């Protein structure tokens, strides 16, 4: 048996196609979110192929199901690398799945493109992060809240690494910026009973709730917040994992008027986005919506294709080297890869949920923010990345 099968040699480009891996949860609790990302990645691949492919070869997606189960993500990643010899992989949503895949990619010196906003404090040489890191989403959101005069914050999150780390950052920010954290609650992923937390919110009466719940739980949380008698006026919230897709599931009536923080909305202006939304609806149905993680997944495919083209090879080290500085016009605007930490420059956007389920931008950072996963540029965050 060959332990010499260095995937970078095979490079997934044998024959006249290039295999690329797509690894998301198609079953289990996370399927709700991740299936749409897979769809947008497949759309991007289709577009790349229509434009002639990469280095004259068509991309051939190999889709695997991570099944909302982190070890399965690791196993399937290994399979894509060792058996299918894919040139690169696009995949993951939860940070837990990324943490599970990370050693696999590092050990095999293979590439992963991870498309979801996350908690930062990480920079693997074998991962490209096309979603926001904290200084492109959470920190701007906090700045915005501070500007709005919000003084007390209640933290509600799912119980795993992203919300816990995000909240750690929020607490550090609050301490340095004269805000107080009046409560912090975690519920298991998939939890759907929020009446007690709603009761606690009612007692704590915070100026704003910072919501890092992920997946299904958001639906239950907002429905129960609403029927608990709270509106966007009496209990404003800002969410960092609620996008158009989730709004549809929650029911716009239950969440309209609340804030979210992302880098992209379906309503984001620009010809590229109009084309993206149209193409997506044409492929998957007119009632479908697009969202930030979907866009980031779409971007990932485009960015990798550009890097490989520039490198003249799909070989991992070559792509990595070529990637730095690549800038594309993508649905959210101009996106540039930061060669140093393999994150991308992204424009931060605060949005207000509309009664029709769309999200209206109410603030943006003006220009793409340089990614700073370790928050080195923020003095208040000095103690965080120990």
């Amino acid at each position, binding site marked *: 048996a060959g332990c010499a099968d260095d995937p970078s040699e095979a490079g997934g480009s044998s024959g006249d196609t290039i295999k690329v891996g797509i690894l998301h949860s198609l079953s289990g609790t996370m399927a709700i979110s991740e*299936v*749409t990302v897979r769809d947008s990645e497949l759309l991007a691949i289709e577009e790349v192929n229509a434009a002639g492919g990469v280095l004259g070869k068509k991309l051939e997606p190999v889709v695997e199901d991570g099944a909302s189960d982190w070890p399965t993500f690791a196993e399937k990643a290994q399979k894509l690398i060792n058996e299918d010899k894919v040139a690169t992989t696009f995949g993951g949503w939860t940070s837990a799945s990324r943490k599970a895949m990370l050693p696999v990619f590092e050990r095999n010196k293979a590439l992963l493109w991870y498309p979801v906003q996350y908690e930062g404090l990480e920079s693997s040489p074998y991962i490209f992060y096309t979603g926001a890191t904290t200084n492109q989403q959470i920190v701007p959101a906090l700045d915005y809240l501070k500007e709005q005069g919000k003084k007390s914050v209640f933290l509600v999150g799912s119980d795993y690494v992203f919300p816990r780390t995000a909240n750690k950052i929020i607490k550090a920010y609050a301490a340095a910026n004269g805000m107080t954290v009046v409560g912090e609650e*975690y519920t298991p992923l998939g939890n*759907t*009973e929020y*009446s007690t937390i709603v009761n606690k919110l009612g007692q704590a009466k915070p100026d704003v709730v910072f919501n890092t719940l992920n997946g299904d739980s958001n*639906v239950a949380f907002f429905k129960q917040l609403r*029927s608990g008698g709270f509106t966007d006026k009496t209990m404003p919230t800002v969410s960092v994992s609620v996008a158009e897709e989730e709004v549809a599931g929650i*029911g716009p009536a239950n969440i309209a008027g609340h804030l979210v923080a992302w880098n992209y909305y379906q309503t984001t202006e620009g010809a590229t986005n109009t084309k993206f939304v149209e193409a997506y609806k044409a492929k998957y149905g007119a009632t479908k919506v697009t969202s930030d993680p979907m866009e980031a997944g779409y971007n990932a495919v485009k960015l990798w294709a550009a890097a490989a083209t520039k490198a003249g090879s799909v070989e991992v080290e070559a792509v990595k080297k070529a990637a730095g500085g690549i800038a594309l016009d993508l649905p959210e605007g101009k996106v540039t890869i930061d060669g140093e930490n393999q994150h991308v420059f992204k424009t931060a956007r605060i949005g207000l949920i509309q009664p029709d389920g769309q999200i209206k931008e109410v603030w943006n950072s003006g220009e793409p923010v340089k990614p700073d996963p370790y928050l080195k540029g923020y003095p208040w965050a000095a103690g965080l990345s120990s």
Partner: protein
Amino acid sequence: MGTLNQLVIGASIGAVLLLASLGLTFTFGQMGVINMAHGEFIMAGAYTAYVLQPVFGSQAVVVALPVAFAVGGVLGLILERLFIRRFYGRPLDTLLLTFGLSLILQQVARDIFGAPNVQVTAPGWLTGGLDLGGVRMPYNRIFILVLAVGCVVLISLYLSKLKQGRRMRAVMQNRQLAAVSGVATGRVDQATFFIGSGLAGVAGVALTLIGPVGPTLGSAYIVDAFLVVVAGGLGQLRGAVIAAFALGVLNSFVEFWTANGASFAKVVVFAVIIGFLQFRPQGMFVLRSRALT
């Protein structure tokens, strides 16, 4: 004030648990079928409300109650006819069988309705809540509570007053004797499974008011639902009612008094149940018999 509120919240959590587990007192409690697909019948009920929405608008939830009962019931009936009837007396085998079916049903839902959550709009009269001097009970929770109590009343009437109910209990206790007493056991099995599964459908409609509607909706409730039925004493309606509300209140208080409570509450509830079974090994309500096993 918070404490009083928690009592109300506990009752409403209890009502949800009860509704989710009522059907199991039939299929599990009476028939001994460990139906892991029960959760998927709940899901089917929820999607029924979703499907009716374009026609009935926000009143879909009300229209959906009887329809979901029928949908759940028919699904259950199909399951019973095709599979379960070969498995009476082998509850543990039904567990594996129905687990397989629940995987399939989830995937079916995903293929029909898509993986993302859908939403069901609550009727206007269910938004808002009742303020009882600072204690707030959302109308939709009151609705669920009333629904659960209504179902319990109907079921207990069925079981104790109607000959169909008596027949059902007879079949479950001694199938062969029931047959030689002239009971068409197959028909009774179908009726029992229909009702149990139908109740799951009703529960599904109610759950659309408070939580997500997606392919995995049911699996979120299944473990708790079984726990309620067991803690109540299998097949004991009274026990299930008490167990559901006790667990609901316990849950809400643990969650209230501990930081990071939601995680902790389940653990405490489990410990309490183990402790409780030390005193009452066969659930809250015990059906003893002199027979040896």
